[in-house]
C-alpha cells in the first residue's frame, strides 16, 4: 500500500462479532503487505484485545460498542480500539512464567500474553471514561 490508509469499524460488544473484526483487520493487513504469518499475528492481537473488552471491560453487555480504527504510516500498521467499559491497562498486567503456567495447567489469561508477544508497540490511554488501546505492528524489512 503506497499511500496512507485509514478504515473504521463500529460493532456491538459481542463475541459473535469477533469474526467481523478479524475479517476487517485481515483484509487491511493483507493489502498493507503483511505475509500470511504476520497478518495472522496482528489479527490475533486485535481479536484478543477485543475479546477481553467484550468479556471483561463490558462484562458481556452486548448493548455496548467498540470502535476500531486502522491506520498505516510508512511501515507501521496501527490498530486503535476504543471502548467505554471498565478500564484496564494490559501493559501492566503481570505475565505468567509459561513453564510454571503450563505445569499448573491453567486455562485463562493467555490473551494478554499473546498480545504482548504479537505486536511491536502497545499504547493505552484512559480519559473521561473512554479507553483507547493502540496496537502497532511494523512490516518486516525485506
Amino acid at each position, binding site marked *: 500500500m503506497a499511500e496512507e490508509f485509514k478504515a473504521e469499524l463500529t460493532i456491538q460488544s459481542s463475541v459473535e462479532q469477533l*469474526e467481523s473484526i*478479524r475479517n476487517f483487520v485481515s483484509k487491511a493487513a493483507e493489502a498493507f503487505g503483511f505475509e500470511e504469518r504476520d497478518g495472522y499475528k496482528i489479527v490475533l492481537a486485535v481479536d484478543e484485545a477485543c475479546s477481553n473488552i467484550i468479556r471483561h471491560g463490558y462484562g458481556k453487555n452486548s448493548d455496548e460498542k467498540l470502535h476500531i480504527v486502522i491506520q498505516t504510516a510508512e511501515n507501521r500498521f496501527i490498530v486503535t480500539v476504543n471502548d467505554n467499559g471498565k478500564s484496564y491497562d494490559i501493559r501492566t498486567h503481570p505475565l505468567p512464567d509459561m513453564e510454571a503456567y*503450563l505445569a499448573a495447567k491453567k*486455562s485463562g489469561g*493467555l490473551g494478554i500474553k499473546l498480545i504482548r508477544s504479537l505486536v511491536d508497540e502497545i499504547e493505552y490511554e484512559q480519559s473521561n471514561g473512554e479507553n483507547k488501546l493502540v496496537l502497532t505492528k511494523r512490516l518486516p524489512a525485506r
Partner: protein
Amino acid sequence: MATFNTSLRESGKTSIIDISGDLDAHTSIQLERAIQDLIDKGRTNIIINFSKLNYISSAGLGVFMSFIDEVRSKGGDIKFSNMPEKIFQVFDLLGFPLLYEIYDDEHKAIEKFQTTAS
C-alpha cells in the same frame, strides 16, 4: 456468524476430532462439548486433527488446557496432528509443545496411542 465445526471419527480405542473453521471466544464452547462428550463416554484417547482449522485464539487454547489433567488422570491423552504452520506458531509462542504431543501426521498419533496402550 463465525463458522466452526467438529466431526468425530474413531480408530479402535482412539477418537479423532476433526476441527474446521475459526476457533475463538464465540465458538470454543462447541469444542468443549465435543471433548466433554468423549470423556463422558470413557473415550480418553483423543486426537485433534487441525488440518482444516483456519484460526485459533487463546479461547481455543484454553479448552485444551482445561481438559488435559482430567484426560491424563484417566489414562488417556489429547494429542494434536496436521497443524497448519500459522496455527502452530500460536502454540509455539506460548510453549504448548512442552505439554502436548504434536504430530505432522494423524496416523503417527494413532500409532503412539497403540504402542502406549496397556
